């Protein structure tokens, strides 16, 4: 970050001196205008503090760096703007409402600049500068939102791969939706760790909720099953629906020695039998 990228423009000095000379008046106009636009969704005191900080930082950087927002002297202002957009994004303000707070500075300074008979050229330079501030604010706002989306999708990823204990020594992982590499990795890790921590010897991977099994999904499943087998666990894939079975056969995928079952119930029955549990209907036919 260099302290001056563009050569100074003689139009800048007039509006900068106007903004520095009439700080109190412009600031109070700014707070008033921004407040009107936000329609009291923010308290007057909060807004006054935010804009006061912004204006203070602006007044410090302008004489040093001129109208170049990229300059190092504007570092604090950029940080304040990023903070403002982050808090707006979190509070549920729209991008428009966020940017308008900054753009209100144009309106707030217009009267003063007019009174000082600032040239049209200088006003345009000022206007461009405020546009830069506004765009920077919007970019920060979008970054915060993108970050939130990313966090949510990561949370979803973890939520979507629970390991369930069906019985003593029997675990199940119901897979739903799409299996990509990241999710399969997570499934495998969760399953293998749960096998150890619960001392289970049987695992059932249920794919009833998986829309399509292509070669990549099949490969991931096979790897997971083999890893579980290496740890001495019995692993069964259940929930293979008719359309999936036909597709897998057409694709030519070999499941080899890996046990598969049409339903989770069948897989559970097999696992129970192997664990030595006997499930039978009582002679009275059950209680209703």
């Amino acid at each position, binding site marked *: 970050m260099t302290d001056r990228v563009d050569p100074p423009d003689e139009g800048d000095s007039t509006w900068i001196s106007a903004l520095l000379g009439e700080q109190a008046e412009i600031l109070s106009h700014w707070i008033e205008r921004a407040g009107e636009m936000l329609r009291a969704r923010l308290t007057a005191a909060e807004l006054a503090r935010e804009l006061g900080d912004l204006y203070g930082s602006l007044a410090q950087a302008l004489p040093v760096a001129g109208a170049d927002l990229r300059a190092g002297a504007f570092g604090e202002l950029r940080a304040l703007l990023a903070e403002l957009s982050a808090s707006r994004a979190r509070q549920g303000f729209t991008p428009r409402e966020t940017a308008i707070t900054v753009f209100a500075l144009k309106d707030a300074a217009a009267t003063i600049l007019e009174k000082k008979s600032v040239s049209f050229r200088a006003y345009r330079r000022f206007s461009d500068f405020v546009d830069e501030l506004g765009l920077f604010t919007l970019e920060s706002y979008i970054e915060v939102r993108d970050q939130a989306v990313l966090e949510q999708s990561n949370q979803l990823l973890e939520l979507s791969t629970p390991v369930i204990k069906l019985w003593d020594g029997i675990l199940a992982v119901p897979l739903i939706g799409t299996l990509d590499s990241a999710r399969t990795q997570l499934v495998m890790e969760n399953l293998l760790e749960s096998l150890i921590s619960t001392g289970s010897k049987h695992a059932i991977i249920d794919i009833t909720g998986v829309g399509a099994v*292509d*070669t990549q999904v099949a490969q991931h499943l096979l790897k997971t099953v083999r890893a579980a087998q290496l740890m001495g666990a019995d692993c069964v894939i259940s929930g293979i629906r*008719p359309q999936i079975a036909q597709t897998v056969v057409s694709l030519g995928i070999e499941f080899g020695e890996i046990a598969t079952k049409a339903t989770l119930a069948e897989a559970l029955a097999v696992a129970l039998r192997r664990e030595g549990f006997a499930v039978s209907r009582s002679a009275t036919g059950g209680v209703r």
Partner: protein
Amino acid sequence: MTIGGLGPQGGGAASSSAGSPQRHAIVVESDVVRVRQVVRSAAVAARLSLVDQTKMVTAASELARNTLVYGGGGAVTIDIVDNGRRRGVRAVFTDSGPGIADLDLALTDGWTSGSGLGLGLSGSRRLVDEFELESSPETGTTVRVVKWSR
């Protein structure tokens, strides 16, 4: 080099597009997921049976991943076609990657230049009714597949 018209229908029957084609870029892994979803809804709209829907979606998934992994990214155009008697779903995958050096080898079960099972291209050919493959180092690879309703 071209391989095509090997499906049960024996060659691309003249078919007209019914509805506007949808074009989707295949650049990241999540695009493969989206291609699956778009193909699924096109297959439902073309009234394919559940088995045929699943076969077409799976083939599209394989080909989209090939486009991404081996073609270095590309695009797919999906539309619903009508040959006068039946409706179907057509998907055309294009990339401008290095092309496939030996098409016959690439279509052999179990052969892969990567780390997959080696069934993507050969398997997806069995899943669809029409399959055309064109590849050269200059123009990249184009795969055109159609699945007809029964």
